[in-house]
């Protein structure tokens, strides 16, 4: 028992550190890639290639004044960043990030908790994050924030449906909700190590997942909740200092989470030849993150009605169709 507790505590702390560092360096990556795509150089001053920029940003933001607006709902205002932040981190509890290993004579699973309903857990927890955003929008006592919160909630409701449906295909194929099992079903010993990845069987599902995941994490081109050109900064307009940075970290943690889930469900998780499994997982997550940034650099924000009609008239029917077709094939087999 004691052994399990110690192993879990170590795993949790390592994963937490990895997520927070990952978030910090995602901001660096985003600024750098975005800058280069726009003919700029991005951060260069703090350290080589601006690599210490996240550290500098973190220090700066800690020492900033923590402002609370006069007509804010104080309790909710303080609660909202936490409500956004915690679910974003919780997602990683079930994500397997490597093959099982023998470490110091112990058989260690490279996942914090191998839930048999891992997929369900992820989708339940990521949906919780929206409450923080709505609370932040409402409790700020600012019209911009409220508009941002409202948009976020409407967007979430619209895209949550397709988001959930988009992975049903994978679940039907894998016949399990456990992420470790989904990964093991995608493994392959042949030279075509990617032959069993679910992206080949679920291309439409992958496209739907990707689109909805971007909408779920409020990223460009679906960043209606923030929409800096319309709503100042949307739901976190009134936030400053660490509270703001908690929203920020939560956004990046969410990005990392959906990237990880995408890698697990469609790209075989940590499966891969030659390189160590953890590295394979990180590579796949990195590619997802890069794709996110790439999208942000390329596309302008959706108009609100376009967003809604896209969600309900395109993604939702396609998600239903994908589910039905996959289920039909499964029946015939």
């Amino acid at each position: 028992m004691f052994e399990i507790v110690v192993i879990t505590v170590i795993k949790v702390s390592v994963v937490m550190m990895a997520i927070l560092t990952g978030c910090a360096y995602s901001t660096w990556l985003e600024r750098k890639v975005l800058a280069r795509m726009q003919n700029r150089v991005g951060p260069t001053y703090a350290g080589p290639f601006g690599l210490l920029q996240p550290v500098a940003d973190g220090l700066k933001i800690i020492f900033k004044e923590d402002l609370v607006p006069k007509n804010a709902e104080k309790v909710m205002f303080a609660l909202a960043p936490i409500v956004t932040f915690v679910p974003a981190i919780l997602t990683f509890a079930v994500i397997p990030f490597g093959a099982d290993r023998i470490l110091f004579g112990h058989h260690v699973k490279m996942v914090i908790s191998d839930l048999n309903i891992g997929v369900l857990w992820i989708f339940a927890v990521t949906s919780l994050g929206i409450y923080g955003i709505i609370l932040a929008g409402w409790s700020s006592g600012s019209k911009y924030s409220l508009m941002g919160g409202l948009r976020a909630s409407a967007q979430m409701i619209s895209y949550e449906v397709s988001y959930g449906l988009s992975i049903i295909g994978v679940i039907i194929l894998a016949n399990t909700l456990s992420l470790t099992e989904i990964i093991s079903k995608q493994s392959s010993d042949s030279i075509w190590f990617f032959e069993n990845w679910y992206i080949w069987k679920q291309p439409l599902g992958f496209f739907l997942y990707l689109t909805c995941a971007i909408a779920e994490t409020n990223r460009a081109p679906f960043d209606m909740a923030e929409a800096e050109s319309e709503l100042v900064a949307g739901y976190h307009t009134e936030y400053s200092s660490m509270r703001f940075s908690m929203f920020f970290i939560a956004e990046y943690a969410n990005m990392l989470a959906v990237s990880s889930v995408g890698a697990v469900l469609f790209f075989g998780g940590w499966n891969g030849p030659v390189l160590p499994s953890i590295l394979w997982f990180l590579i796949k997550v990195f590619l997802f993150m890069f794709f996110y940034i790439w999208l942000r650099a390329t596309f302008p924000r959706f108009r609100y009605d376009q967003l809604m009609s896209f969600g309900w008239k395109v993604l939702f029917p396609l998600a239903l169709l994908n589910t039905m077709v996959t289920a039909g094939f499964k029946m015939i087999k």
Partner: protein
Amino acid sequence: MKEILIAFRNVLWRMPKGMAITLKYLFKKPVTLDYPTVKKPMVERYGGRHYLERYDDGSERCVCCGLCAAACPADCIYMEPEENEKGERLARVFEINLLRCIFCGLCEEACPEEAIFLGQEYEFSDDNRNAFLWTKEDMLVSHPRKENPFKRLYRKVRKVYGVPDRIS
């Protein structure tokens, strides 16, 4: 149905096209100059700070005629004349308020003595307003410049406008 077809067309053709462009720019060299360490060479005709020139024998060209002050649209030039021991007219006070100056270069065009020229320097920042009131000592060159690029340039401009060249 129509929306779905449009979405497919966008995803399969239009979006990759746009993303190819941004990807192309990722591998291009950024246009940014690392300014305080790397400075862009200014074009030859750039008008920056003012210089007051000297004749080849070292005497000042400016005779304090006031034409530059008259030509100045920003009214930033102030001057007071005096006479030296040889009986030549000189500027006792010659001040340019760089905060008012718009660096249009009309003063160098107006000057009949080829005395005032705009240079290439453009970094004037200071935390003291008085530092922007430049006097004759600030602008007067220490010795006559043999090869003065501005003079050469100015000669060209004069030729274009058909004004006779009076630089010795």
